[in-house]
């Protein structure tokens, strides 16, 4: 039985392990406020830590004895409080995907299943739990975000739990499930006539004039650190080992870079033995600026205008794209892109082989995994982790025409028997067609 989640401070206060904000480009340092841009060079600011302090505080055993959520890794996260906002986020299943592996000719494949992350069924709950905990520490009473859907769901839900006011901005053409899944928490929702990149620009302008905590803008250095828990959990769930290869969607590039940082931090503090981990990236062809740069051997990203069903990863101007590109290159990974039709097939393949219904972003990851495996770009003996970042119930439009219909029958045995025979005939025909 799972215990109720209500964790008042029960342990002595640990010293905060984060020390300042540091520019990734020029190294300038700043205090730990709500800012995300270097005033010298406009580079992104990142949280810096005292790794000696972390090493002193943390062991495998202390982590394993912690809460069954991302907060078991609190020493690696940029919050000072002993009572972070804990809505059960994280510690999602790492599933050994034997049936999918056989289909793809791989021997050791795992699915990190954030389609069932709590509370809003995407990896975004990780970053938002961290961002809103930090927002509260910094004194914000209103939180906000620019979102392709999942981030809006998560910000609205966790703000509701924390009692924070919330105003979110989304493109006006999002999937119905993502819009409803935000409105239910009763935030103010601004549906902007424009794509995500335009929504993001507008929010930056709003952030200049409103004193709100924008999770992906002025709180970005704290927010993005939450994605590191995707790395920590995989290491712990593999029995304190690094995988050989990971496949994840570098949409803005943030998650991808933070998984890389997470693995490196565990090595740095001695929690896991070092070894090379290859990073491969999955993009939708209709929005693949990082893939284009990779393919053309460029060291800069040219923005694109998104046109794909994979809306949650339709970011044409990826802020951390350049870092994702560097990581793929230096780890001997690959960036690959797939069509919308391949994305739908990827969603169906994961569902049919492993019982996981992912959204279009996950379909992109699986389709790229398949493409890389078929091209021999994943060694069958590599332990490979595919990161599934969101839930298919939110993007039903994408597959509603591709999964067939139920067989409608009368509540009579002979009606069932006729339909059953018909169903078997149809699958036999399917089978014969695939044999030809």
């Amino acid at each position, binding site marked *: 039985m799972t215990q109720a989640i209500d964790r008042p401070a029960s342990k002595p206060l640990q010293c905060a392990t984060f020390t300042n904000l540091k520019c990734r480009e020029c190294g300038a340092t700043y205090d730990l406020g709500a800012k995300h*841009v270097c005033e010298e060079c406009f580079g992104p600011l990142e949280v810096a830590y005292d790794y000696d302090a972390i090493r002193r505080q943390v062991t495998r055993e202390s982590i394993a004895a912690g809460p069954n959520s991302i907060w078991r890794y609190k020493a690696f996260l940029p919050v000072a409080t002993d009572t972070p906002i804990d809505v059960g986020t994280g510690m999602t299943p790492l599933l050994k995907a034997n049936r999918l592996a056989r289909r793809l000719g791989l021997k050791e494949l795992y699915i990190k299943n954030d389609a069932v992350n709590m509370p809003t069924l995407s990896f975004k709950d990780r970053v938002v739990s961290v961002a809103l905990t930090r927002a509260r520490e910094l004194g914000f009473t209103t939180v906000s975000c620019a*979102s*392709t859907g999942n981030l809006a769901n998560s910000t609205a839900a966790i703000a509701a739990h924390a009692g924070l006011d919330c105003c979110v901005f989304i493109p006006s053409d999002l999937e119905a499930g993502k819009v409803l899944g935000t409105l239910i928490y009763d935030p103010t929702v601004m549906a902007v006539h424009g794509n995500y990149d335009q929504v993001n620009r507008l*929010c930056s302008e709003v952030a*200049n004039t409103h004193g709100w905590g924008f999770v992906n*803008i002025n709180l*970005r250095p704290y927010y993005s650190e939450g994605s590191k828990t995707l790395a920590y959990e995989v290491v712990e769930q593999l029995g304190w080992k690094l995988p050989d290869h990971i496949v994840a969607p570098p949409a803005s590039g943030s998650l991808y870079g933070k998984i890389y940082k997470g693995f490196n931090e565990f090595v740095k503090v001695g929690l896991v033995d070092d070894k090379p981990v290859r990073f491969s990236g999955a993009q939708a062809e209709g929005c693949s600026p990082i893939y284009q740069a990779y393919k053309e051997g460029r060291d800069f990203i040219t923005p694109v205008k998104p046109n794909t069903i994979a809306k949650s*990863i339709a970011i044409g101007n990826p*802020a*951390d794209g350049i870092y994702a590109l560097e990581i793929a290159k230096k780890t001997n990974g690959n960036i690959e892109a797939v069509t919308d039709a391949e994305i739908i097939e990827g969603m169906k393949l994961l569902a049919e082989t492993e019982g996981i219904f992912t959204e279009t972003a996950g379909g992109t990851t699986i389709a790229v995994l398949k493409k890389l495996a078929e091209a021999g770009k994943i060694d069958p003996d590599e332990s490979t982790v595919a990161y599934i970042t969101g839930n298919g119930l939110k993007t039903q439009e994408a597959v509603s025409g591709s999964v067939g219909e139920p067989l409608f029958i009368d509540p009579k045995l002979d009606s069932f028997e006729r339909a059953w025979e018909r169903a078997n005939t149809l699958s036999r025909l399917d089978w014969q067609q695939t044999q030809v």
Partner: protein
Amino acid sequence: MAVKVLIPTPLQKFTNNEATIDIGGDNIVALLDSLESQFPGIKARLCDDSGELRRFVNFYVNSEDIRFLDGKETALSDGDEVSIVPAVAGG
């Protein structure tokens, strides 16, 4: 001729905390020079040593990224709105 420039928070210390500036310039390059003459030091924050726009700064003219237009040669007309925006994460 004047265009309206939206100044991001990190640069507002150059503009006496003004978030919006009306200023002249026929294109982005000329606009940067106008900004520099009125607010000394601001250009070095936006451009690297070789004069190219820094890679983490985005310029928009009437909501369109200048990389979809003519880059820093993008022409400006009276009444245009230019937005300077740092790169942001998200999704």
